[in-house]
């Protein structure tokens, strides 16, 4: 295992610290959004601070839940459904 591989292996043990850093960065971004906004909002609502944070979170959650929990169960088949494999 080379240097980079060993480094990555060590980071697995620091999982909690990385997660805290992520939360910190996200909070800082929203805080910054209070002071920095778009010159010309594209949709109107995006003039409000936190709009894009909420947009990313809500669209992401809805997309995963709808596609994995509601759509996929209906359209999924066995891997060799068409007899190709």
């Amino acid at each position: 295992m080379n240097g980079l591989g060993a480094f990555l292996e060590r980071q697995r043990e620091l999982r909690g610290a990385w997660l805290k850093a992520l939360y910190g960065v996200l909070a800082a971004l929203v805080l910054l959004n209070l002071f920095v906004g778009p010159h010309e909002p594209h949709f109107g609502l995006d003039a409000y601070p936190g709009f894009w944070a909420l947009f990313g979170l809500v669209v992401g959650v809805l997309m995963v839940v709808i596609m994995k929990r509601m759509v996929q169960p209906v359209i999924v088949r066995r891997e060799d459904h068409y007899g190709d494999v």
Partner: protein
Amino acid sequence: METSSFIHPAIGFLALAAVLPFLRGQWWNWLLPAPAVLAVFAVFTMTPGDHLTLHWLGQTLLLGRVDKLSLVFAQVFAVMSVAGMLYAMHVKDRGQHIAAALYVSGGFGCVFAGDYLTLFVFWELMSIGSTFLVLLNRTRESVLAGFRYFLYHTAGGLLLLAGLLLRYKALGTWEFTAMAPSANAPLYEWLILAGFCVNAAVVPLHAWLPDAYPRGTVTGSVFMCAYTTKTAVYVLARGFAGWEILAAAGTVMAVYGVLYACIENNARRILSYHIVSQVGYMVAGIGVGTAMTLNGAVAHAYAHILYKGLLFMGTGCLLYAAGTAKLDKLGGLAARLPWVMVLYMVAALSISGMPVFNGFISKTMTITGAAEAHRTLVALGLEIAAVGTFISVGIKLPYFAFWGGKPTDNDRVLAPIPWNMYAGMSVLAVLCILQGVAPSILYAYLPFEVEHPYVPWSVWHVLQSLLLLGFSGLAFYLLRKVITPHEGLNLDVDIAYRAVGTGALRFVCRPLAFLDDRWTEAYRTGGLRGLMGIALGSVWFDRQAIDGVVDGSARTVRGIGGLGARTQNGSLQDYLGLAAFFALCVFGLVWYLG
């Protein structure tokens, strides 16, 4: 013939395809990047204007239309071919290299084609070359997918052919020019548009792409993901800018692709659905049709070729080393393939539009352009697609391939990855970052004049991207147990044409086979007896009179017949290859004599 300031970049690739079968030994793999380097040189030295006109059957064909639009596409095609050929250098199967070379030369031919006939010839050459890149994976799965791919593209090619023939009948010209958007456009324009849309994988004509690309060879899919759809984007940008239907179609593609990618398990199929999605950004930009969105479409095509090539290379490495690209079978590989992971992540962050990487400077241009043209729904759809892109390609794929909550997989035997694969990936990774940091490297080549040039690196753009991506990342983290990929096949619109195919096969197998049986029976009893009678007569005549004279020629005829019988072996691959070979011979002859 004016050639002083124009070398057609296809020449080198055609020459490579022509000589490769005759070279002995293994040294020829050093020859592979040569035509690509020549193509880069050609693109940077050619001067705008019309080059290489050809007179054939009373028609004037234009093989070298060089303007800003064709130049920027040719440039990225050339750069990509260098990386692609480097990445493929270790492959010993010459067939794959020949197919790739023909395919790439077809791409260059389309980009520089000034008339529909030339365009059509190279369009079909691409179709044949790419079919072989699927077939030559040599598994049952890929041979079947290759057949479907070829049938589908033949149908698309026929739409284009029908359109351009009707257009010639109506207008008396083959010239390939922009078509003005209008509600009551003539039928031929719709046919041509449909032909282009097949190759652009416009939903619902897209199913060939996620069907074939995951089944191509490791190195072949890298080429395919770059050229077919982007050639289609180029012809759409030239012919159909401002067509309203494309704005809607592109937005649908952008969202549709990410939704399917969200539930896919096969890494290369996730990327394939993301081609549909990313090409959606370009098609939408072309449909909106302002200078800014057209530039956005071109810039995104350029950036997309670089990072999508790199994404397919990264997943190709997984497939090459681990023997599978299915996420449920991978995991715990970060420490064992660290550089593959890092190079993959460069591409993954690029496609997601993360600042510093090139997707950031191209994707935001299209979205901002759409919003400034007051196309709120288009812009909204593209933002939704951006969230899905980061979740699927930016996090899900690498997370489940390299970590997946599993311990480091020390037991799995990994095939060592050759240096040239790393070299090909590094070229693209460096370019992705360079363009992201210094957008002018890309913007300098954009073809359309805008009043206020787009500036991606503003505090707000950076903050907006980070907010959007950061919180979609949080959504993934919260739902990582829900999004875990499982084995399975997700039905798509190909269910429709597979039903048609199965139906046709049943029709041939049952009623037609019955008729064939009866006919054989009738022939055996009636026809054969008559023939025997004639034959007996002929034998007598032959023995008495002609024997000595004809013996020689009979032997010749038998020889030719034998050759014919050998070529007609009933396998589509061989017919295809022969047809392409003869077409190229005729083409070369015309070129030489003209």
